[in-house]
C-alpha cells in the first residue's frame, strides 16, 4: 500500500527514466581565438647630435630635421658640423599588420656643468612624413623587431652660450 509521499517519488523517478532514453546530446566544439599583443618596446639606435655650434651675440635656435638638414635661426650662430639625426627602433612583433602607432617625443634639458640649453623633438616614422617640432608623429607599421623612427629637434641656444659639451635626454614613447 502506497503512502502519499511514496507515490510522488515513483512518478518523479519514472519521468527521469523516460527523458534519459529520449535525449542524449553530444557536444560540438566551436573554436575560440585571441592574440595578445605585448607593449611596443623602444630602443635607441643612434643619438640626436646637434654637432659643434658657436653661439653668437643673439639667442636663437638650431633646428635639425629628421632628413638631416641643420639650420640656425640667426646668423650669429655658426654651425660647424658633426651633427646627426637620432634614430629609435620600435619592436612591433606581434602587432596586426598596418597597425597605427603614435610616437611622442618629450623635450628635455641639455646640461654642461651648471649651464643649460633646452631641446624639443620631432619624429618621422615609416612613410616619410615628419611631425612638427614638439608634435607627435603617427604612422602605420609592419610587424617586426626594428621599425625605424627618426628623431630631429630644435635646440635653444642662448646669447654667448657658455662653452662646453652639453648632454641630456628626451623621452620617446610609442602607443597604439
Amino acid at each position, binding site marked *: 500500500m*502506497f503512502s502519499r509521499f511514496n*507515490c510522488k517519488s*515513483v*512518478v518523479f*523517478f*519514472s*519521468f527521469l*527514466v*523516460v527523458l534519459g*532514453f*529520449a*535525449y*542524449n*546530446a*553530444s*557536444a*560540438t*566544439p*566551436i*573554436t*575560440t*581565438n*585571441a*592574440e*595578445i*599583443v*605585448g*607593449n611596443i618596446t623602444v630602443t635607441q639606435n643612434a643619438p640626436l647630435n646637434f654637432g659643434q655650434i658657436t653661439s653668437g651675440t643673439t639667442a636663437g635656435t638650431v633646428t635639425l630635421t629628421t632628413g638631416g638638414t641643420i639650420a640656425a635661426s640667426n646668423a650669429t650662430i655658426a654651425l660647424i658640423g658633426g651633427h646627426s639625426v637620432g634614430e629609435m627602433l620600435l619592436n612591433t612583433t*606581434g*602587432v*596586426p599588420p598596418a*597597425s597605427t602607432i603614435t610616437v611622442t617625443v618629450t623635450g628635455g634639458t641639455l646640461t654642461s656643468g651648471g649651464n643649460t640649453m633646452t631641446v624639443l623633438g620631432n619624429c618621422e616614422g615609416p612613410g616619410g612624413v615628419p611631425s612638427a617640432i614638439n608634435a607627435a608623429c603617427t604612422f602605420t607599421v609592419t610587424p617586426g623587431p626594428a621599425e625605424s623612427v627618426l628623431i630631429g629637434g630644435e635646440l635653444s641656444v642662448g646669447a654667448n652660450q657658455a662653452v662646453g659639451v652639453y648632454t641630456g635626454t628626451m623621452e620617446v614613447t610609442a602607443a*597604439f
Partner: protein
Amino acid sequence: MVLLTVVLMHLAPSDARAQWEPATFTELQPLNFGFIVPGPAGGTVTISDTGAVSVTGTITHLGGATNAQVLMDSCVGPGRNARRIILVPGPLSGPGPDIVLNQLTCTSPGRPTRVNRCRNFSGTAGNDILLIGGTITVPAGQTPGVYTGTFDITGRNRPPCP
C-alpha cells in the same frame, strides 16, 4: 509497482514525435577576440553575438574580432522545432596562463540574446545560423601570443523531418 508501470507506458516514446534527438552543429566561423593589448591593468573584451567589440579596463583592441557563426540543422516542420541550445565556455590556452572565457551570448533568427544558451523557434524547415559572442578576461602582463580554445554547444531537435 502498478503506478510505475502506468507512468512509463504513458510517457514512453511510442510516438516518434515525442522524442528529442541531438541536433547537429557545424562551425562556420570561429569566435575570434582579435588582437588585444592588455595595458597596465588588464580588463575584459566582449564580442557581442552580432560582432560588436567593447572593452573595459586598460585594454586596447586592435581589430580582427569576429563573432562565431554556427549552422544548426533544422529538419522539422512548422511548430515542431523547439530546441534548447546550451553553450559551455572553455578557457583559451597559449604561451601564458589560460585566458578565462567568462560567458557566451547567443541569438538566433527572431529570438532575443541569451547568456550561455540559445532558444530557437524558427518554425520553418531548413538550416539556422546561430550568432554567438562572448567575454574574456585578460589580466595585465598576459604573455603575448596566440591563444586558442573551444566552447561546447549542444542542442536537441524534435523529429520527424519533413
